[in-house]
């Protein structure tokens, strides 16, 4: 799997030093720098930072996108705490994250170990595992809603063959969130597997050999060599998958639209619902800012903890 890039070393053309004031040279260097960074900076400022700043000002107004906005100060933020729908949405997001993140990491490690074997057609298996990740979540969602259709879906057909009772799946308030988590896992586990596969192949062979020479069995090698070596990657995947779970939207939009009875309405979906379905842009922006703050805080805490305990993921 390793790729090598061969590049012909370029000989630097000898520059004739011209008499120039150091000020001019600095200005030129700075201009050149901005020449490279400028277009990207413009894009980031125009498409990310400006809307983010704007959203903050919107979050302090009551605005439906059409009539003039009225300033309401921090009232939108205060309202989140007493809004039962927002609290329910936060709970759904929490449940989804708690189910999704550990499951995707565990499955990712398992699949990566399995794909790290030297067997025939391994390239084909690896591709198979990664394909769902490449497929768009919207397509995954539409496909899954066929599979889990209570009346005509393949999932109930399989249950029937096994002699188990038919389930409502996405149409039952109790099961919908779990089914969504399963669909998300199917789509995202390929990503974890590939990351772990790369990490597994990075583990120095000498370490494994040394442990084997010292009499460690396969399990002990895995427990005391492989797992600790995978730690930095695990921190990365944990953060990455947490963000994925917290921002899961397209899957929910294409399967349940937040239903049944709002049981799959996550924070992101609730924001969409507020801002673009019921035109409460101010309140929606406030909830979005809260979500941003929570995601940021979580990431900072994990990185801080990780730096303190001295592993080098970030």
């Amino acid at each position: 799997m390793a790729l090598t890039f061969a590049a012909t070393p370029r000989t630097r053309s000898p520059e004739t030093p011209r008499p120039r004031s150091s000020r001019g040279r600095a200005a030129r260097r700075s201009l050149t720098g901005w020449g490279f960074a400028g277009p990207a900076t413009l894009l980031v400022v125009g498409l990310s930072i400006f809307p983010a700043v704007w959203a903050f000002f919107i979050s302090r107004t009551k605005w439906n996108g059409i009539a003039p906005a009225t300033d309401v100060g921090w009232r939108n933020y205060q309202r989140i705490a007493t809004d039962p729908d927002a609290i329910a949405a936060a709970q759904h997001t929490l449940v989804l994250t708690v189910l999704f993140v550990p499951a995707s990491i565990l499955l990712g490690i398992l699949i990566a170990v399995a794909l790290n074997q030297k067997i025939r057609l391994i390239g084909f298996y690896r591709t198979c595992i990664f394909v769902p990740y490449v497929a768009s979540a919207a397509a995954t969602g539409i496909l899954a809603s066929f599979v889990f259709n209570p009346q005509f879906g393949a999932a109930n057909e399989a249950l029937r063959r096994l002699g188990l009772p038919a389930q409502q799946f996405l149409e039952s308030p109790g099961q919908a969130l779990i089914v969504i988590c399963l669909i998300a896992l199917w789509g995202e586990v390929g990503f974890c597997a590939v990351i772990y596969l790369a990490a597994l192949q990075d583990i120095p062979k000498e370490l494994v050999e040394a442990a084997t020479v010292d009499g460690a069995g396969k399990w002990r090698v895995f427990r005391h060599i492989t797992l600790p070596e995978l730690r930095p990657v695990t921190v990365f995947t944990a953060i990455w998958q947490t963000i994925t779970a917290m921002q899961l939207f397209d899957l929910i939009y294409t399967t349940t639209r937040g239903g049944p009875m709002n049981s799959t309405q996550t924070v992101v979906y609730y924001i969409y619902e507020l801002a673009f379905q019921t035109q409460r842009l101010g309140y929606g922006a406030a909830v979005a800012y809260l979500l941003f703050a929570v995601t940021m805080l979580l990431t900072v805490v994990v990185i801080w903890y990780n730096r303190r305990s001295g592993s080098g993921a970030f």
Partner: protein
Amino acid sequence: MTSIRRGRRTRLLAAASAALLLTAACTGGESDDGKDAAAGYDPAATVTLTWWTGQTSEAQKVAEGLAADYHAAHPNVTIKTSPGAPTTDDLLTKLSAGFAGGSYPDISYAFGNWAGDLAASGKTQDLTGFVADPSFAWTEMPAAARTVATSNGKVIGVPALVDNLALIYNKKLFDAAGLAYPTDDWTWEQFREAARKLTDPATGTYGTAYSVSGSEDTTWHLWPLLWQNGGKILEGTKPAFNSEAGVKALETLRVMAVDDKSMYLDQTDEKYGPLFNSGHVGMILSGPWALLDIKDAKLDYGVTALPGVNGDHQTVSGPDLWVLFDHEDANRAGASRDFIKWLTSAQIDAKWNLAVGNLPLRSSEESTPEFAAYVKEYPGGQKFFDNLANAKQARPTVAGYEVMSRNVGDGIAKVLQGAASPKEALDEAARKSADALEN
């Protein structure tokens, strides 16, 4: 190093304040100055109008043809026709972005329940005087549609499409169950009884169906029941649907969904139509838009007025509008008014709404050959046209209706899935909506 830092900080500050200024410009609106938008209009002036039709494929082609016809008759008026957005639902988002950026159309299609919000933008024309002119024949349009086009006493648009809910039933299923067909005099008790007898778990057949997605589709099916029971949606700007009448209306639906299990509960809005068309649902409460798919499914069907309470069979209408916007240009405002007057005239509307399978806008169109052709193609069409007379009340056109609709829809969904009682659910919906309706 400090100087660089400070420089960076000032730059950030400058950027932030620039953003603030821009934001203030973007979220601000204009107030109404009370002047007629078309005062001093010169009909001979050369103008270009932008028309967002909200239509796709076939209907959009018809619209383009009509715009070309109009241009041929009035060479000084060029009409730029486009759907405006990928789906009609997205038009509102496009309009709000257009308001923020200052580039919005002269005429746009709009759902009736947006009227309150659009009127609050301060960018719509006041057409009250214009439609009052006898030559416009405003009263030929259904009363419910005229009410929806009016927000706070001001007419902001002209009805573009009228419809209503009626009872559509599958004759084959009624015959198989040995039941008499529904009539215009049915009560809800008779409806429930028939639904119960049509339901057969062995064949996956339901008596009737209802959407529990919590959207406007869920909500507006309840309004006729509420009105028939003597209830009101709003009292002033306060929610009034959680009255005794509202509870009784929702209980009528609950017994079918929870006690009888004769009601298919659709989580998506999109499944009950096809299920009816495939013969798995005996009766649905739906509108003329369902007729095209039913025709394609070659289903033997009948249409009657909604079941009633004490002989009151009133229904709900969901009219859509052509909303006219003000660009501070009398010639554009005047030209767009003339165009819409032409488009919604009995003669041209027959080539527009009837041609694309909708009900006619004006009562005077009943005698046109286009109407005869429409009824021949869609046998239920006549019934829907007659049922327009039963649309006596309209959904309120107030800002905040969208929020209230969502809360009521969620409440109905809970009740029909057995998770709440009608009283609890409606009270909760009223409490959650009060804030959005009042300020």
